[in-house]
């Protein structure tokens, strides 16, 4: 009975996470369609008014609209393909996942959410160059893994001052994999609105609810989130 409850609870949190990411991406797709629709309308307008326009001007205006449509179609195709890949991560409850590729796609899919808070999330250059060498991987539940990492990003995003850049890097040694999320901005040491360690320890504050959820998500995949001593971010430790 308790196992069933836990499973149901896991499924509910997974569904909420999938819903949040899907809502954000479909919102962006709506913008893509809105831009295509406006350009299609503009092309109609231009053709209707073509008698008042020179051939060169008409061609230039139509080409401009076509270029915008092409760009937006590509944006839409990329987002749809990422969303499709994300939806398929629910296919298996346990799989070997490539940390770099998974993080790269997760950041892309959730970019709109973090951008709305004025925060940029990026993968460290050294992690990117490592992508062709020994890529760290982990065997776990792919959805819960992404949810745990996203919860950490989301918590740091909501705690960060606008203009903050959250840089993700990772390290694998023996059976231990660490993902580091480090904040930087032009405010010097003032990256986050609150002292993360204090918020994490004091469970009575409103922000700590989000931290508690972050820790719970990490627990589900046997990971631990640990705030840096200098308060500049956190480390998620697997294994």
């Amino acid at each position, binding site marked *: 009975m308790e196992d069933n409850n836990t499973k149901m609870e896991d499924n509910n949190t997974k569904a909420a996470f999938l819903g949040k990411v899907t*809502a954000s991406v*479909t*919102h962006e797709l*709506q*913008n893509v*369609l*809105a*831009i*295509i*629709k*406006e*350009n299609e*309308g*503009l092309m109609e*307008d*231009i053709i209707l*008014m073509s008698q008042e326009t020179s051939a060169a001007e008409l061609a230039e205006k139509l080409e401009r*609209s076509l270029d*915008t449509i092409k*760009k*937006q179609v590509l944006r839409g195709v990329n987002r749809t393909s990422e969303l499709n890949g994300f939806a398929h991560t629910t296919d298996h409850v346990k799989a070997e996942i490539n940390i770099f590729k998974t993080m790269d796609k997760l950041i892309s899919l959730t970019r709109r959410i973090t*951008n*709305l*808070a*004025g925060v940029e999330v990026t993968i460290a250059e050294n992690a990117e160059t490592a992508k062709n060498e020994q890529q760290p991987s982990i065997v776990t539940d792919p959805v819960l893994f992404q949810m745990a990492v996203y919860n950490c990003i989301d918590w740091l995003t909501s705690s960060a001052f*606008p203009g903050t850049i959250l840089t993700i890097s990772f390290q694998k040694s023996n059976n231990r994999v660490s993902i580091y999320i480090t904040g930087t901005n032009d405010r010097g040491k003032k990256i986050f609105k609150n002292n993360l360690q204090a918020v994490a320890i004091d469970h009575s504050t409103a922000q700590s609810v989000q931290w508690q959820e972050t820790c719970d998500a990490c627990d589900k995949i046997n990971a631990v989130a640990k705030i840096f001593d200098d308060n500049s971010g956190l480390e998620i430790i697997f294994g």
Partner: protein
Amino acid sequence: MNKNIKILLIDDETEFVSTLAERLELRGYDSKTAEDGESGITMISNEIFDIVVLDLMMPGLSGLETLKQIKAINSKLPVILLTGHGATKEGLEGMRLGAYDYLMKPLDINEFISKISLALRELE
């Protein structure tokens, strides 16, 4: 005759607003664009507009926060909000804060223009 009507379009999707502005220009409106709430508010402080079209989901200053600041500058300036599907809650909240109405993206240009006309007529 629409040339005297000045419209400010505020949306971070720059290709969306620039195309919409061009379509409005073709219909004789005088339209300007801003890509975030902060620059939109600066423009409203420095220029007279007849109507503002404001996207609700923007980075930095949110649509609703921008709306509050616009209304603090000029409570009579009509504001039409743009939302995505499923964002009707924010649209209604915006109307509670003084927006004239809200429309969902993608827009229907005729519905959009008739909404602008209605908002301006009510002001007369």
